[in-house]
């Protein structure tokens, strides 16, 4: 029982840290920044250096 109690306490502490991190992450600021940029440039795409395989094939990297 002592071992189970210790295990439960350890996991509670670990998950407490996870929950605190999740709550402290300011996703609102990030959403505001993305919204501000998306208002100017409406058709947004994920930022990849090679948007398609065709572009990647164009570059003859060694």
């Amino acid at each position, binding site marked *: 029982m002592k071992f189970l109690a210790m295990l439960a306490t350890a996991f509670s502490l670990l998950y407490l840290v996870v929950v605190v991190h999740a709550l402290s992450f300011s996703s609102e600021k990030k959403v505001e920044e993305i919204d501000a940029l998306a208002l100017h440039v409406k058709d947004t795409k994920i930022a990849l250096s090679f948007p398609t395989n065709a572009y990647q094939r164009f*570059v003859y990297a060694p």
Partner: protein
Amino acid sequence: MLRKNFVEYAILLLFKDRNDHLFSFLIFSFIVFILSSVLFISDSLQYDLIQSIKAQPSIVVENTRAGRAYPMHEGYVYDIAQMAGVSSVEGVVDGYHYFAQKRLWFHVIGDAHLAKDEMLIGQGVQKAMAELYYEDEFHFLTEERLINVKIDKIAPKGTNIISNDAIYLNPNTARAVLGMEMDEYAKLYVTVPNPNEVGQVALKIVEIYPSAKATTQADAIGAVRHVYYYKGGIFMILYVIALVSFFILLKNQVGLVYGEKKKEIAILRSLGFCIKDIIALKLIQNSVVSVSAYLLGVALAYVYVFVFNAPYLRNIFLGSELENSISLTSVVDFNLLFLIFLFGVIPFLAFVILPAWKIAISDMSEAVKS
């Protein structure tokens, strides 16, 4: 009802055979960790991208010729603006500039809010340029001339998912960089005020211009989901393969161990333990192992993805050519975590308890004699 002493005895036995259980614990934690990490990254990227698509106009029109992107002229704008249900059509400049020194493609996007000689760049572009000492000014090398533009604005880090490879320029400067004429557009933004008419207008556009592609907001969201379901799906298949291999391994190991433990089970039976007790004993031990491994795997995946921003693994989704220091938004899908629990922990217990039950119901007198 389980008695305290019984549970303590089960834990004591767990410690006695700790080496056997440690193996299952570590492998199961690792499998849960990998799958949870991939799902966390996929969900987080999807969330940010869908957030940015929400500002997208009703329809985005792009043109093709011989399967390649091809610019549109004023005639397209006029024709689409005449359609019933369309309130406005805006032509935009968009394309890719090849940065030969670093063998990268920069996404050049026209933004009317910027002056002719200024540009806003993503953080990945800034780093790539700075490596070649373009710190205050960048020289766009085009077929005709060299175009100098001041680097005076950097996009905030939060927007890296969409701005990392992007250069925002005044539309006229962007045209000069991309070699487009003044009346040419790479894309048209079509605004349809009534959401019920969007699909109909998109069909009409494709009817008039069969080589054009009309993407509605719903299509764009669907495309993002499709890409991430596909990438997540590949991992799901790998996960299933890994999990099945693990269970086969576990079954073999358990079979072997329980073969050796036959005498122990027989002694317990002769002491008065019934089959139900033997199964309960094994259930307690393996529940502790599997649930702990699951909880540890998920927590480590959270820390790896949202605290350390998933080094290495995020390159599968974002590519590694242009350094992308995005901060992943913490998005946790509890339904998926529950699904992993259901398809991970439950089969784990089944694979361990079934051999124990088989041994417990066999003839004990022979086992005790041996």
